[in-house]
């Protein structure tokens, strides 16, 4: 749903690296190199970011759309 706070296996905090990781990978950087530069060394922590899908963004879209419709109704 949303990026886990810590690595499931070792307990290192990985949540705070997610946004930078996602931004840089989207911009075309090599994911492995980004992880290295963020200091995420162990493969248990690396898979946390590599395999994550931020589904909460998809769910939030429904609420955003509903909000837009409500605003449109109020406008007319």
């Amino acid at each position: 749903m949303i990026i886990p706070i810590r690595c499931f296996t070792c307990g290192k905090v990985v949540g705070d690296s997610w946004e930078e990781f996602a931004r840089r990978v989207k911009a075309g950087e090599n994911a492995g190199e980004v992880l290295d530069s963020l200091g995420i060394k162990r493969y248990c922590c690396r898979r946390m970011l590599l395999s994550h899908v931020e589904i909460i963004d998809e769910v939030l879209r429904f609420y955003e759309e509903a909000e837009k419709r409500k605003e449109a109704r109020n406008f007319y």
Partner: protein
Amino acid sequence: MKIEVLEKDERNMRLLIRETDVPYVNALRRIAISEVPCLAIGEVVIIENSSILQDEMISHRLGLIPLKTDLDSYNLPEECECKSEFGCNLCRVTLTLDAEAKEGTRTVYSGELVSENPEIVPVSDKIPLIKLAKEQRLRLEAYARLGKGKNHAKWQPVSKCTYKYLPKIEIYSKRCDGCGKCVDICPRKVLAKSQDKIEVRDLMACILCQDCVKACPQNPKAIEVSGDENTFVFNIESTGALPPERVLAEAVKILDKQLEQFENDLKVKKDED
């Protein structure tokens, strides 16, 4: 016992511990993981939650946020004088959160938690807690208490606490013909070839996997890898709740206390006989 610091920064520490043995080093490792206390949120009162995550999930996320811990001013709940289930100023820290998405979808970060004690704050301000769509709101009060890793992993002050024997690599130059097979196979690039000789480039990186020995075509083998059983490379990575050196110091203290307790128990048994 002799201790040498190989590497140290805010979160990590690598030590070389000489003249000791596995039982002692392993006891320290286990205590650092499961007995050294640190602060974590244990109870959450949700006042308002119109977000799309359930109360339980938010509480769980809050619990996992490592908090900078002050071990000198806080007591473990079971050792606190207040004897209260709810806790007092000496065994509980209150954090509050009031976040609302007024403009549109936004992320709420750990930095928005307001602590009653400015020293006890999340180790990072950038941990995403939740995302709120417009007009959603989250208001809560959370209570952090000291606890031990053996009860819940959120109270574990270390994310890595390991040791290994100090590697010992011996190359018998008489038998070695410099074929370089050991250099190629080594996963940690420990060995290097210079002219027809094999050299140890980075001894500490060796993980004692013995691949180089297996790869050596000579019989008997021209390379031998073993661990020094009385010297350890000890590695601590703190979650940020406590500095790594403090974790180790506490572990030693706790071990001493437990040994003393054990000795007393034995004495009582003897008296009874």
